C-alpha cells in the first residue's frame, strides 16, 4: 500500500477533511490555532479539536493583499486569503498569540473582516524570555485561557481528562519519533516531502485517529525500500513549511531532507510532556521550555544546540537556512546560525522565499549548486 492511499494522508491536501466533518456531526467544536505555543492537550481535554492554521490550497493572495502590506509575510497572507474566501468557516474559534508581528496583525484583521461579531477569539501573551517570572505569567495566562474556554463553550476542565490527553499526545509524539528514526536511517524510508504530509495530516485530524493511522504509516514505511539515490543529506531550518512541494524542490535535484528544525516539523514532537502531579503545570512547563523559534530572545544557544544535535543524529551533509521573505525573526536567526555553522565547518545555504513558491526555478538552481558544492568538497 502507498502512503498516499491512506485517507489520513489525504487530509494533508485539503483544509477540511472527512474526519472534521464527522467530528462536527457530533456537534463538537474545532478551534483554529496559529502557533506551536498553544497547549493543544488542554483543548483536547475539553473534547474540542485543535486545528493548525495553514495555507494549503491557497492559489493566490489577491484578497489578503488588499488588507495587508507587501512587506507582510506571504504565508500569513495565504492563510488570511483562505479565511477571506470562507475556507476556514468550519472553525468555531481562533486562538492566537504574540508569535510575530505579521501573525498579530493578520489575526486582528481576521477578527474584523472574517469572523462574525461573536466569533470567539482567544489570545495568549507568551513571554519572550525564559525566566521564573515568565513561567508564572504563562501559568496565569493559560489559567485564564482555560476559564475562557470553559465559559465560552460551556465546558468543565477536568484534571484527569488532561492527564489522559497528555498521554494521547505523548503517544502521538512517540509514533512521530519512530517515523523520524526511519527518516534519519542510512537508507531513509521516508522522504522530507512525505514526512511533511504526515505532519500536516497529523495536525488536522483527531489525535486518537492519528495514533491509529500513524501505526499504519509506520507499517507501510517499514515495508518500503530505503531511499538510496540521493546525493546529499540535508537539514531544513527556519520559517514555517506545510507544503510537500517545497521539500520536493530539494529532493528533485538530489538532496534528501532527512531532518529539520521547524515548528511544524521535528521540533513539534521532539519532547514529551513530562508527567507531573499537576498535569496543567507540567503541560505549561513543557511548552514553555520546548525548543523555540526565534521569537524567544534568550534561546538562540538552545536552538543552535538542537541544530547541531540533529546534524549529528541524521548525519547531515548540509543545512538549508530558509526564511519566508520579510521574516525578521528567522532572517536574523539564520544569519547567526550561518556564522555558527560556518565556524563548525558545516556547509549552509541561506535563502529567502515566498510561501506560494513563485520563484522555484531560481531556487532550484541555487539548491543544485549547493548540492554540487557539498558533494564535490
Amino acid at each position, binding site marked *: 500500500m502507498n502512503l498516499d492511499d491512506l485517507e489520513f494522508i489525504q487530509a494533508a491536501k485539503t483544509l477540511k477533511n472527512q474526519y472534521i466533518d464527522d467530528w462536527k456531526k457530533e456537534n463538537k467544536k474545532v478551534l483554529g490555532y496559529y502557533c506551536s505555543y498553544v497547549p493543544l492537550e488542554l483543548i483536547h481535554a475539553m473534547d474540542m479539536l485543535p486545528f493548525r492554521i495553514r495555507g494549503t490550497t491557497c492559489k493566490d493572495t489577491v484578497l489578503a493583499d488588499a488588507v495587508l502590506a507587501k512587506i507582510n509575510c506571504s504565508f500569513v497572507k495565504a492563510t488570511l486569503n483562505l479565511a477571506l474566501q470562507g475556507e476556514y468557516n468550519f472553525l468555531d474559534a481562533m486562538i492566537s498569540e504574540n508569535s510575530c508581528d505579521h501573525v498579530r496583525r493578520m489575526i486582528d484583521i481576521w477578527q474584523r473582516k472574517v469572523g462574525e461579531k461573536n466569533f470567539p477569539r482567544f489570545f495568549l501573551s507568551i513571554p519572550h524570555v525564559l525566566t521564573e517570572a515568565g513561567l508564572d505569567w504563562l501559568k496565569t495566562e493559560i489559567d485564564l485561557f482555560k476559564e475562557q474556554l470553559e465559559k465560552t463553550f460551556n465546558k468543565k476542565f477536568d484534571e484527569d481528562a488532561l492527564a489522559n490527553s497528555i498521554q494521547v499526545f505523548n503517544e502521538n509524539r512517540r509514533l512521530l519519533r519512530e517515523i523520524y528514526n526511519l527518516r534519519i536511517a542510512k537508507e531513509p524510508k521516508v522522504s522530507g516531502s512525505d514526512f511533511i504530509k504526515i505532519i500536516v495530516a497529523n495536525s488536522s485530524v483527531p489525535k486518537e485517529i492519528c495514533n491509529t493511522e500513524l501505526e499504519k504509516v509506520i507499517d507501510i514505511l517499514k515495508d518500503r525500500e530505503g531511499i538510496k539515490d540521493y546525493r546529499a543529506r540535508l537539514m531544513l531550518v527556519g520559517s514555517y513549511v506545510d507544503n510537500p512541494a517545497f521539500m520536493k524542490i530539494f529532493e528533485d535535484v538530489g538532496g534528501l531532507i532527512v531532518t529539520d528544525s521547524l515548528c511544524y516539523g521535528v521540533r513539534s514532537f521532539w519532547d514529551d510532556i513530562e508527567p507531573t502531579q499537576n498535569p496543567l503545570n507540567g503541560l505549561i512547563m513543557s511548552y514553555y521550555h520546548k525548543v523555540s523559534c526565534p521569537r524567544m530572545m534568550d534561546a*538562540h*544557544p538552545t536552538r543552535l544546540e538542537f541544530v547541531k544535535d540533529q546534524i549529528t543524529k541524521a548525519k547531515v551533509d548540509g543545512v538549508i537556512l530558509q526564511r519566508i521573505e520579510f521574516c525578521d525573526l528567522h532572517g536574523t536567526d539564520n544569519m547567526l546560525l550561518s556564522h555558527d555553522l560556518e565556524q563548525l565547518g558545516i556547509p549552509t545555504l541561506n535563502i529567502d522565499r515566498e510561501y506560494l513558491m513563485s520563484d522555484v526555478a531560481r531556487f532550484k538552481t541555487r539548491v543544485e549548486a549547493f548540492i554540487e558544492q557539498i558533494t564535490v568538497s
Partner: protein
Amino acid sequence: MVRKVIPYEILRNASAITLDLIERIVTENEQIAMRSFLRHSIHVLDDIIQNAGDKPIIGYHFAFPGDLLQCFDATLVCFEVVPYLMAALMPNGAEYFYDRITAFGHPFHSCTSQKGIMGMFLDGLVDLDLAICPTGPCDNTIASYQFFSNQMKIPVLIADFPHYKTERAYKYAAEELVRQIDEIGKLIGQEPDYARLRTALNHSREAQAYLAEINEMRRAIPCPIESIVNPLITGAITMMPGRPEKTQFFKDVSDLMKKRIKNHEGRGGEEKFRSFWPNISQFYDMGFYEWMDRELGMTQLVDVFTYLFFDPIQDPMHDSVESIFQQIAKQALNYPMTHQAQSFIETMVEDTLWGVKAFKADCAIMTGHLGCKQIAGAIQIIREELRDRLSIPMLTIEVDIGDKRFNSIDAVKYEIAEFAKTLL
C-alpha cells in the same frame, strides 16, 4: 582606560558643524528649535564622550525606559537614535553601516534603527559593558538584540513586556524592571542610586509638562511651530532620558510657540493643510520639513513619537521606589511605538482617530517604514476607519525612515503633493 564611542563622536561633530552652518547662514529668528536641539545634543554627546573612559557604558533600546538607567553613574547610549541622527545630519547617514550588516547576512528588510548600530559594532566602533532592551515593540527588536548577545558576545539584559495594557501587565513589567536594575547593578558593580533617579525623573516630569504644552499649542490654527520639530522631539526623547537638556529643549520650543501665539504668528508659510502622522517621521532629509511648511503649506502636526500616551511620574521626589517602578512600567508599556505596535490593532486605530480630531487634521500620512511589519499590517484598517468614521483620507508613503535609497525624497514629495491636490 580608553573606550570607544566613535558613533557618538561622529554625531557630535556632525551636530557641531550643522549648528555652525545654521548660525552662519540663517538669520537668528529662523531654525530656533533646530538650534536649541543641536546645542543640547552637543552637550549630551560631550558628556557621553568625556565619560566613556571612566564610567560603565550602557547601551539601551529606545523603548526601554532610559530614565530608569539614571539610577546608575554610567554613560548611557541609545542605540536606535544613532543611525537616524546620522541620517539627519550627514549626507549619506549610516548607509555604510546598513550595508555592512546586510553583507554579514542580516535581512535587508529589518529596521535600520538597529541595522545601523549593528554595522557599527561589526566595525568595532563601540565598547560596551552591557545592553538592555525590552521584548518589543516589534520583531526587529527581538531579532536584532540576539545579534548583540550571540554574535558580539555583549551581555544583553531583556525586560519582558507583555502584549496587554492591563494592571496585571504593568505589575509584571514593573517586576521585570526591578530584576533588570538589580542585574545591571551586579554587572557594573554599583548599587542603584535612587536619589539620582528621583532627580532624573523630575527632569522628565518637567519635560513632559513642556511637551504637553507644545502639543496643546499645536492644536492652534495655524500651527505655531515648524514640522521639523517632530523628528527633533523624537531625538530628544530617545537620546536625553532624565536629562535637563531635554527639559530645556522642550521649554525653548514651548516658549517660542507661546511667543508666536501671543503675536498671532504661525510657523512661517501659509498653512493650507494639517496632517497627522500615525507612524514616525522620516529622518534622511531635514529639508523635507521646510518644503512641507513653506512650499506645500502642509503642517506635520504630531507623529507617533511626539505625543505621549502616559502620565508623568506623580511625585518623583517623594513617591516610594516601588511606586516609581510601577509608574515607570506603565510608562514603558505606553511608550511611543510600544503603546501602538505592541498591542492589538484597536490601539493604533483609536490613537489615530483621536489624534486627527484633537489636532484638527485634514488628513493623515502614514510612513510605511520597511522595518515596521506590524504597522504595515494595520495601515489598511486605519485607512478604512478614518474614511468611514471621520471622512478623513490617509496617504501611505513607503519609506525607510533612515535610508534615502529606499525611496527618494523627491518621490515622497511628489506623492504628498499629488495627495494634497485631492484635499483642496
